[in-house]
């Protein structure tokens, strides 16, 4: 078996007396897209944030390309985070920088790339997400979908080996979801390794290599979309999805 790109082993997080994550392990082979689903409060977002140590875990370990990361070593941690890009639900663009500088700033400050080179690279990434004509606009002048695409370009500019996406379309108006999903779909075709938390089941069904169902801080089931979602199978994942669909139908 080949060594996974990213491997999280037995991650536990306790906040106060609440066990948010209980021995969660995840192995990401190169080029795979794993989709995390589950009810809110299941720990999906917390787990994604422990994967690049935005939330510290109480026990467990992280391995990149088979090598355990020493998270106490700042230099190693910063280098690790450059390898593991993150996309947030609410974009978190830097409000004082235009789209181009949002993408270029980490190249310049973290990687020490010279200004012009960083701008060229940033422009290239903006093109990749279809926003080359918005380079000079500031976050407040962009739509939600455009902001999220800039955020994706910002993460891609760092040449991450893994991309974590924390409900990237949940804060978007329905008509803007498509443009962001299209960009993510292109990334799967380019073979980028990704973990994504989402409620977009159609997207997950179509593109995920594996669906990971979480509940109460644990991984309950994982498997290919066919295994978990096929008609006639009785999986917890399928129950959850059926309830999602009913809930939407009730609203209509």
């Amino acid at each position, binding site marked *: 078996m080949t060594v996974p790109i990213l491997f999280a082993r037995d991650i536990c997080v306790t906040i106060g007396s609440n066990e948010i994550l209980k021995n969660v392990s995840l192995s990401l082979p190169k080029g795979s897209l794993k989709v995390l689903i589950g009810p809110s409060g299941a720990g999906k977002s917390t787990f994604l944030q422990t994967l690049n140590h935005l939330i510290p875990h109480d026990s467990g370990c992280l391995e990149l390309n088979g090598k355990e990361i020493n998270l106490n070593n700042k230099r190693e941690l910063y280098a690790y985070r450059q390898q593991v890009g993150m996309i947030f639900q609410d974009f978190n663009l830097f409000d004082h920088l235009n789209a181009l500088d949002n993408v270029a700033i980490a190249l310049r400050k973290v990687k020490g790339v010279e200004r012009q080179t960083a701008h060229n690279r940033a422009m290239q990434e903006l093109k990749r997400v279809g926003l080359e004509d918005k380079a000079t606009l500031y976050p407040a002048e962009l739509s939600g979908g455009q902001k999220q695409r800039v955020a994706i370009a*910002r993460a891609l500019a760092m040449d991450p080996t893994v991309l974590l996406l924390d409900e990237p379309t949940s804060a978007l108006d329905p008509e803007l979801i498509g443009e962001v999903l299209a960009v993510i779909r292109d990334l799967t075709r380019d073979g980028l390794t990704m973990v994504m938390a989402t409620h977009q089941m159609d997207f997950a069904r179509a593109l995920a290599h594996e669906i990971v169902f979480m509940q109460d801080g644990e991984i309950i089931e994982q498997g290919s979309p066919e295994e978990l979602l096929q008609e006639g199978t009785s999986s917890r994942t399928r129950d959850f999805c059926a309830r999602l669909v009913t809930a939407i139908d009730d609203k209509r």
Partner: protein
Amino acid sequence: MILEKLIVISDALPYILQGAGITLIIVAGAMVLGLCLGVPFALGQVYGPPLIRGAIGLYVWFFRGVPILILMFLFYFGIFDLLGLNLSPLTTTALVLGMTSAAYQSQLFRGAIQSLPQGQLKAAKALGMSRWQTVSSIVLPQALRMSIPAWSNEYSIILKDSALAYVVGALDMFTRTHFVASRTYEHLTLFMLVGALYFFITVIGVYFLARLEKKLRIPGYTA
């Protein structure tokens, strides 16, 4: 009668305006010192270890709690003397006003820093930025922009407090006016004149700070 007053004014004006130069030096010195201490104090209070936070807290309480008039005497006749420093009245005034302003400025920067959306800090971390890189390229550029309106308030306050230079005998605008008044007995005329001068310097300064604020405004951003 009116002519006499006009003659007093025109005789005194050059002398008083030179004092305006001194007043502006005091104000500029105090504001720059306040900025240079206020920003690190604010950062220390937000990100520093408990000991540093406590020390800065004490500093702020001291300078906010004691009247500037008392601080002027305290430093000019006491503390600077004890330290073996022989500072001029002008330097003393600028330092005391600057240290006081640092206390206030640190609080306005602290507010601005704490009001930044936390998500941006997460994003910076996720890109591999160190604490210092995040502060210098993400936090401060935004926090300082947000502070300009409050900062122009600070300018008008320091400008008027600078008249306290009188008590240590720096030859600022007010001290000079007072000298002329006690020689010519035209108190009312001269104090009206100097009051108007303070007013105009305030208006001009606030105007330029408002222009700066507009110039640095982030397009589309209203907060």
